[in-house]
């Protein structure tokens, strides 16, 4: 990454950038370009401390049991891994842990040779046997780790030939194989005797003790954990110095303290005060609460596009939305401008389908984002047979011998923005004779209803996965996240082909076609792409954004540093 950043000359000096206020695209670019640099030799303060924000506590410090984003933040620093993906979502093997990585010509095998200077935080060496052991535990039926198992279960096997050599066996030569070999690793010498007695990994006394102080394989180890309050990580010497020799870069911080603050107002106050060095900002905080001297005294902020989009999901099996014309009509009826301009503070860009316009797999064909056109919407509804037959102000249609009024319920979560957007839909559709009931639903109930497909419409969002094949989870017939029961044989075929196609250009064509097909069918009304907004202390440097935000890629948080005084 250093090489890439060096190729782009800074747009401003550090001093200038620190004095800037981030109120325009130009200023934002300057801030990122000046402050998002890696340090020159000796420039970083290696004894520095940093306070990070966690909106919720971890459920577990065991990387196998991890599932939420908060855990990713912490366990990304303490966990041991061989593979990752970079800023452009390209997979690679980490030079810190891997000596050599080869893929067989037929795509069935991956051979990895570990470095010989890897040590767990308790002093024992990390070997290929740990990886093979972790694979066994993950794949064992008794261990409840479905999140981590998915993907890993596509492998045929993992075998450790000696302390350093590993071979991953795949079932077929797919382009997606490279993602399946990326699973978390736990120390064999710690769990070998205990996991079979307690496959849940959290019940027995030994496992409970390990939760408080786990054995870590990454650059940091957990030294203190107060539930609901904070988690303290410290850089461990055995990561960068083995047998007296410096073998890896020293991490930029000596101590990382995660403070758990659930209330966003309190977190912002803490950032302003200096108790926090970084946090994610809500759009509201970005536009209204981080613009004054009080904020800029100690902090600055930055934003970048993220591959997270929000949409209305239509249940294609419901009597209302099985017809493509109705879905298109609703997309035409919705007041997109008002949503983008007012509710989203003018911060987001309209979304034209499943892939972000800057992604390699997005379609090159220009897709027009929908604009409110009530006449067109009414024409489409009339065409689909939804007219006001009984003259009561509400459209209706005869289905199965009965007159069904066009009244449906849209589910959303309890966030104010989600409710505002759904209310805007209600008002837009009210004008053309369709009645909408907005039902903010508790998060867990919402998930349950979606899984059981008991809904007419819902509001939600997805974050893009690193590989476009992950979208097949949502769009292929019968897949787990295909809540709206969308089914298109051509899309299914294209996904299957995309999996096996190794040539990047040809793959891109297939996914582009998928995006175009989905755009025509409108199983979702795609609304907007979200940016990620982040507040940083003025002492921090080195933050670089990726389509997954500033931290959820490699190096992610590892590129942040504080200058030596």
């Amino acid at each position: 990454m250093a090489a890439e950043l060096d190729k782009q000359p800074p747009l401003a000096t550090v001093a200038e950038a620190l004095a800037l206020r981030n109120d325009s695209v130009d200023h934002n670019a300057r801030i990122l370009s000046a402050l998002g640099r890696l340090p020159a030799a000796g420039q970083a303060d290696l004894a520095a401390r940093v306070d990070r924000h966690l909106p919720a506590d971890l459920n577990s410090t065991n990387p196998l049991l991890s599932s939420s984003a908060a855990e990713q933040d912490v366990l990304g620093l303490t966990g041991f891994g061989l593979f990752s993906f970079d800023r452009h979502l390209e997979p690679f093997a980490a030079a810190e842990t891997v000596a050599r990585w080869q893929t067989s010509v037929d795509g069935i095998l991956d051979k990895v040779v570990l470095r010989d200077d890897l040590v767990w935080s308790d002093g024992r060496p990390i070997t290929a046997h740990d990886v093979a052991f972790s694979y066994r535990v993950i794949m064992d039926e008794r261990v409840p780790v479905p999140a981590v198992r998915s993907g890993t279960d596509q492998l045929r096997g993992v075998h450790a030939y000696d302390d350093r050599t590993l071979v991953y066996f795949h079932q077929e030569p797919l382009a997606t194989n490279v993602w399946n070999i990326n699973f978390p690793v736990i120390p064999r010498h710690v769990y070998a005797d205990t996991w079979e007695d307690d496959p849940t990994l959290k019940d027995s006394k030994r496992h409970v003790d390990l939760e408080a102080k786990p054995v870590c394989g990454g650059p940091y180890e957990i030294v203190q954990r107060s539930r609901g309050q904070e988690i303290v990580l410290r850089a461990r010497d055995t990561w960068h110095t083995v047998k007296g020799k410096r073998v890896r870069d020293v991490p930029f911080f000596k101590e990382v303290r995660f403070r758990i603050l659930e209330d966003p107002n309190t977190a912002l106050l803490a950032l302003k005060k200096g108790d926090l060095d970084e946090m994610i900002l809500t759009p509201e905080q970005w536009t209204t609460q981080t613009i004054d001297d009080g904020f800029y005294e100690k902090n600055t902020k930055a934003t970048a596009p993220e591959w997270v989009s929000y949409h209305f999901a239509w249940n294609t099996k419901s009597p209302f939305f099985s017809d493509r014309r109705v879905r298109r009509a609703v997309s035409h009826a919705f007041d997109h401008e008002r949503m983008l301009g007012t509710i989203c503070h003018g911060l987001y860009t309209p979304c034209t389908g499943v892939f972000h316009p800057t992604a390699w797999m997005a379609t090159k064909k220009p897709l027009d984002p929908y604009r409110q056109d009530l006449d067109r919407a009414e024409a489409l509804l009339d065409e689909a047979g939804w007219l006001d037959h009984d003259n009561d102000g509400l459209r209706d249609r005869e289905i199965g011998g009965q007159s069904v009024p066009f009244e449906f319920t849209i589910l959303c979560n309890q966030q104010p923005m989600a409710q505002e957007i759904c209310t805007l839909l209600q008002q837009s559709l009210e004008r053309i004779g369709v009645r909408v009931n907005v039902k903010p639903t508790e998060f867990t109930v919402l998930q349950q209803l979606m899984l059981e497909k008991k809904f007419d419409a819902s509001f939600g969002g997805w974050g893009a996965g690193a590989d476009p094949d992950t979208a097949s989870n949502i769009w292929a017939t019968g897949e787990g996240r295909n809540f709206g029961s969308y089914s298109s044989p051509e899309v299914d075929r294209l996904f299957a082909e995309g999996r096996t196609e190794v040539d990047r250009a040809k793959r891109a064509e297939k996914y582009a076609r998928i995006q175009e097909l989905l755009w025509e069918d409108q199983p979702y009304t795609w609304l907007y792409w979200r940016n990620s907004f982040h507040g940083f202390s003025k002492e921090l440097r080195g933050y670089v954004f990726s389509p997954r935000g500033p931290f959820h890629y490699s190096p992610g948080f590892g590129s942040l540093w504080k200058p030596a005084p």
Partner: protein
Amino acid sequence: MERPPQAEPVGVARPAAGFWAEAWHRFRRMPLAMTALAFVGFLAAVAILAPAIAGTKPVICRYKGRLYAPCLAYYHRDWEPVIFATDKFRGEYPRNLAEKDPASWAVWPLVFQDPYRAVRADEWPGRPANPARDAGRPSRRNLFGTNQSGVDVFAKMVHGTLVALLVGFVSMGIAASIGIAVGALAGYFGGWVDAVVSRTTEVVMCVPTLVLILALLAIVEKPTIWKMMAVLGLTGWTGISRLMRAEFLRLKSAEFVAAAGAVGAGPGRIILRHILPNALAPVMVPITFGIAAAILTESGLSFLGFGQPPPAASWGSLLNDARSNLRMWWLVAFPGTAIFLTVLAFNLVGEGLQKATDPRLREARK
């Protein structure tokens, strides 16, 4: 022979007009309490006449030769005259009325704002759209300002008055009726009646309200604020019943009760006529505060997601809008002041009621 002098109707005590009429007489003579009652009456008037005070639909209009009252739609969705849908008004009345029928006229609400949505540009000829976000400060057109989406706060407060009043009365009414009745029976009869009632009360007390609301919300198709309030009423009576029971335990051994019994009064009469008026003091505060507190509870519930479905026009939803951005002080100041005045009013009325119904005071006035 002289006729005996007629008894002159001077200085003779009027026949007892009944307990409540007498109480009302005394209440009428307390200026503070009457002012408070007048305020409550004012709120009630605002609640009933809300569509005529603030709205974007005409109160009455003449269109194509017939009279209509579109503002009734604010009471119930189905009461909007169908002709405006068939004629493609799309919810915008001022321009469409003039364009589609030049001979039409309309009587508009006092304030042209909608409690459920922001007014669009040029909806009222010559008027810009409602400001949104931080720009929604109180201004000439938006007396109390607008919330983040641009919805007028004054309109929301006017239309939310009905919810505010009824929410308190419904939940407290249920809770008070059950609580007083149950507590009185338990305290007066004692023995196994008390045992059964007290154990049942304990069971209801142990059920966490949050769990109940969550269960109700998930099971019911269309959760409305009334169902929530019914739940609050059905679970909130326990405190009142315990207070009542304690008073009855204390008073049933009082002398006047023995006296009433000696005269031949049955348990019902003793409870209602003799003990109850003396026992009301401890429950006045929970009841009067409870009515006002219901408004704050409604706010808390909608924050947790259990309130009216959006777009809700209630004082509580305004407080929730304020949560994410307290710089918009008008979202807190106006509902907060309204709540303060309501609390004050209900407490003054309660105070007045207590003084007016106190049997001892009645004797004192003689």
